[in-house]
């Protein structure tokens, strides 16, 4: 715009030069928006009286007049110079600089959808209006001036069943007057079916309650139950039908047509299963529980049962039979039984029950402690015709029996029973808290065979009471030992056949015994001298060459398998002899050695002490002379004026070195040697 105004000033200056003849000039500058429905443009007419002025129109960039009409056609934005010269020369010339802009209104294209039956969907219409510039704004509002927002030029509005809505569309063009349009959206009423049936047991009629919404006056109505059970063409508040079967289920079809808006629906009606109570009581004694069998029909699994007997109610879940948890005295009772399917349908019936009488029994004879296979008692019942029924009991008649338990047991029952003429049975059961076992008689540590002089062995009875544990041992059928103990120490010092009898009584008074056998076999007979001294070159015989024991195998440490060997060398010789039948073995050792005392002394001299600080004693041959003492330089040592010494008749010689220097000396003994003496 700044550029435009600069050009205008230039044109004004130019125009003034042309109008020098006019006395006065009015200069005006005008900006104006021209609103047009025509996209080509619009004619602009100046606001002056065309009879009083002559108009000259200039383009800004042209210095010649392009029109002298009263109006000019403007197609777009343009800047014009209008010189209005009054007819009256005395009047003032008006010089207008006009900046004009043409704005075109939108071309409105709005089409409302036709009114149709209500479907529950929103109603939509498209705004196809053509907008020519950016100065145009569109606004949609409903009847309560709520702003509606289109999406991709499509406006969606929910219109309820049978309702209408007026939509206002306002087009705003800046600098121009608004354009306002209205669209009416609406639906036809769609009938609403609402039929509700009550719940009944089989045999009762079903009522259908009609809560549907429609205009009765202008609508066609139809309600039909399948299979011809019911057919209704006129609308009513309710309809009554009877379903023929127990637990019947049927479909109901409904149709309503209101002003060509048709609604159809199908509902299902039914009746609840109705039970039939049928019961059969079993024969029952007064000491028995009454059992009632169930034969009822049309009973659901969830059904509940109730029996009323003599004013007492007993409830059960559905089953094949029902045991009444109480006994009843001998009598006849009226029982009311009810089945409840828990669906609102029940069935009740009554029947008679007879309770028979019982003959009651008891017995005695169990007041003692029992051990298996040991204790025996007489059982006595109060009815002579009664009997005891356990396997360890032997009935002996007159209601009596002998009981002798064969196995250990806890809480062992003894039952006495009698059945009377009414086939009613009574029994008494007494519990024996404990039938104790016999003590387990296992003798540990016993082997079948022993060898003579084997190590001691301990025969252990794995029990607790030493004072009641008897060991009775017989050897070769004669009493060998008898002692009360749990651990018997046996030394196989006597060969023979042994029988060990153990008798044991435990703390419960239960007792038992066992017998075991074993044999102590003799070992092979061998005997070697423990130490034998021989001379080199001697040969001696070890072992017995005159006795061969049957079944005995000999084995010497030098590999020989004969009963004897001949040896000539020192050493330890070991003989093993084993009886292959009894596996008893003997071992003996012979130590053969040379006599160490047979020897020859090579040197017969004894000197001591050495080292010495003073005296030294020499013991050797008697009267041995020429003994000398020299130092390490070969110089003779003189002791007490003597440089040669002799032993006495006992072969002894004492030398006193106390005055000699410390060091080392040679004691030279003729024919025996030169011995080093150390003087400290």
């Amino acid at each position, binding site marked *: 715009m700044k550029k435009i105004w600069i050009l205008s000033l230039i044109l004004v200056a130019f125009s003034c030069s042309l109008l020098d003849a006019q006395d006065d000039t009015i200069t005006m500058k005008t900006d104006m928006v021209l609103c047009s429905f025509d996209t080509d443009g619009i004619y602009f007419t100046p606001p002056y009286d065309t009879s009083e002025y002559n108009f000259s129109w200039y383009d800004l960039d042209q210095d010649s007049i392009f029109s002298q009409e009263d109006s000019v056609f403007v197609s777009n934005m343009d800047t014009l110079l209008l010189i209005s010269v009054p007819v009256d020369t005395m009047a003032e010339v008006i010089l207008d600089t006009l900046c004009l802009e043409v704005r075109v209104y939108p071309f409105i294209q709005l089409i409302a959808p036709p009114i149709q039956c209500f479907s529950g969907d929103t109603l939509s219409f498209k705004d196809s209006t053509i907008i020519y510039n950016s100065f145009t704004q569109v606004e949609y509002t409903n009847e309560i001036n709520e702003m509606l927002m289109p999406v991709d030029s499509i406006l969606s509005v929910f219109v309820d069943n049978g309702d209408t809505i007026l939509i206002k569309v306002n087009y705003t063009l800046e600098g121009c007057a608004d354009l306002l349009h209205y669209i009416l959206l609406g639906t036809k009423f769609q009938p609403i079916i609402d039929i509700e049936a009550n719940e009944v047991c089989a045999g009762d009629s079903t009522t259908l309650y009609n809560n549907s919404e429609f205009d009765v006056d202008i609508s066609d109505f139809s309600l039909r139950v399948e299979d011809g059970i019911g057919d209704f063409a006129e609308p009513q508040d309710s309809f009554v039908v009877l379903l023929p079967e127990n637990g019947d289920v049927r479909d109901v079809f409904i149709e309503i047509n209101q002003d060509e808006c048709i609604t159809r629906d199908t509902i299902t009606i039914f009746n609840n299963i109705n039970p039939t109570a049928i019961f059969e009581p079993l024969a029952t004694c007064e000491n028995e529980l009454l059992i009632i069998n169930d034969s009822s029909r049309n009973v659901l699994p969830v059904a509940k049962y109730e029996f009323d007997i003599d004013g007492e109610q007993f409830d059960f879940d559905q089953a094949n039979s029902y045991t009444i948890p109480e006994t009843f005295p001998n009598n006849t009772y009226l029982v009311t039984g009810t089945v409840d399917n828990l669906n609102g349908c029940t069935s009740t019936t009554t029947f008679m029950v007879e309770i028979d009488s019982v003959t009651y029994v008891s017995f005695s004879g169990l007041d003692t402690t029992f051990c298996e296979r040991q204790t025996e008692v007489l059982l006595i019942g109060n009815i002579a015709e009664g009997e005891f029924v356990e396997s360890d009991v032997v009935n002996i008649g007159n209601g009596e029996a002998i009981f002798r338990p064969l196995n250990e047991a806890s809480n062992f029952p003894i039952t006495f029973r009698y059945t009377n003429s009414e086939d009613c049975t009574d029994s008494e059961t007494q519990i024996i808290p404990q039938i104790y076992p016999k003590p387990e008689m296992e003798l540990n540590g016993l082997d079948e065979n022993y060898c003579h002089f084997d190590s001691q062995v301990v025969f252990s009875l794995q029990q607790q009471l030493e004072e009641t544990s008897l060991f009775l041992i017989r050897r070769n059928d004669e009493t060998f030992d008898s002692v009360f103990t749990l651990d018997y120490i046996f030394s196989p010092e006597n060969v023979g056949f042994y029988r060990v009898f153990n008798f044991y009584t435990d703390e419960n008074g239960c007792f038992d015994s066992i017998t075991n056998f074993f044999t102590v076999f003799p070992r092979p007979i061998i005997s070697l001298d423990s130490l034998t001294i021989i001379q080199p070159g001697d040969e001696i015989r070890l072992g017995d060459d005159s006795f061969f024991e049957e079944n005995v195998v000999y084995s010497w440490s030098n*590999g020989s398998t004969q009963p004897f060997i001949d040896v000539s060398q020192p050493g330890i010789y*070991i003989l093993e002899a084993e009886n292959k039948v009894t596996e008893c073995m003997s071992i003996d050792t012979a130590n053969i050695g*040379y006599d160490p005392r*047979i020897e020859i002394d*090579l*040197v017969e001299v004894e000197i001591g002490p050495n080292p010495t600080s003073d005296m030294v004693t020499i013991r050797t041959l008697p009267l041995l002379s020429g003994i000398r003492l020299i130092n390490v*330089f070969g110089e003779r040592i003189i002791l007490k004026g003597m440089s040669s010494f002799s032993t006495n008749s006992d072969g002894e010689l004492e030398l006193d070195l106390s005055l000699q220097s410390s060091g080392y000396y040679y004691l030279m003994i003729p024919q025996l040697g030169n011995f080093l003496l*150390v003087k400290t």
Partner: protein
Amino acid sequence: MRIGMSNFLGLFLMVTILLSSCDLNKINLDRNDDELIPNYNITLDEFRVSKDMQSDIIVIRDNLFAMAIEDNLGEIIIVEIGQEYDETWNLTMDSIQRIGEGRLTFFDAYGENYLIGFNDLNSDFHLQILDKSYNSSQSLDNLESFIDTSYNDIDSLHLTGFSYDEVSMDIVFGGVVFTQGTSYSCVLKTDQFLNPLYFKTYFAEHLVTDILCLEQDTYLLLTAGPAQSNLIRDNTSGAAYTKYKISEDRLFFGLQAILDTSIIYLTGVSEGIGRTMEVNLETESAFVNDIEIYPVSDVRALYLTRNNIITTGIQVFEDSLFHFSSELYDNGSLWCKRDRMDQMHRILDFVEMPGKGMLTSAIIDRNNSFFIQLTRIDEEGARFNNEFTENCI
């Protein structure tokens, strides 16, 4: 009256049986001053050895020796040691032959061959004859089964040495056998092909420390037990059996030479005194000659070609160890010398190299690792520095 030696001899460690015909009173060493041969000792660092191994050192020729070595892992190997004389004494050591694994108990030459004995890792004893190239020509590996049947069931056998009877060409081995929980000194005799001939035992808890064939079928044993040591002469039939008591104490011996059937030399230690004993078996008498070095813990003796006895050993003196050598004569030591060697552990062998001195093989202890050390001494010992004798004490 015969007097026992118990107080006098005490603990007498005898290591040598030597010979008789030498006359100690006649010893006169030649002066060979112009043949100065320096004394050296060299440790063979190439092999760590077992501290208990036993082997002789065998002079093959002037500059070559052979030994068997049991290394610290139990590998038994024959090695050759070469020596060179120059300004210094140089040794070279080569592994020649692997024998096996176990505990080496002896290796020595006999005739043209060598004999080696060892217990394997299962304690079974094996004997092998090696030819000149140290290849096994004969072996005896099932000794125990032979002894089990010929004598008794034994647990193990350890032979510690042998002697070769050049007349019968049989070999007599000595050692100890374990049977029935007791040990016995024992002798095994084989033919020259190691076929066992017989096995004899002697005294319980004794072992044969050395053995020497005297004449055909007669041999001499040194045995040591917990209470005494004995010299035993015996033959196959036992007819020659004679037992000589030489000590009441436990002694340890090693036979090294004999020159006569009636005179032998024993060497050993008794209560710290090194001692040789000249035994005359004909007169059944003995002559004792003590070494002037005191106290000693180990001694070996060698009968020199000049008919004299030289000893070598270990002296324990004021917490120090010395390796000493001493040549004996009628008044004790003719000369002696010693060198401090705190690592000395045990003397293995002592041999003469005529004209080139004596060679000692020993085991030394370096922080509980053990090595062979060879020491060469001038055969004239200390005479170069000390006219007659050095007071080695």
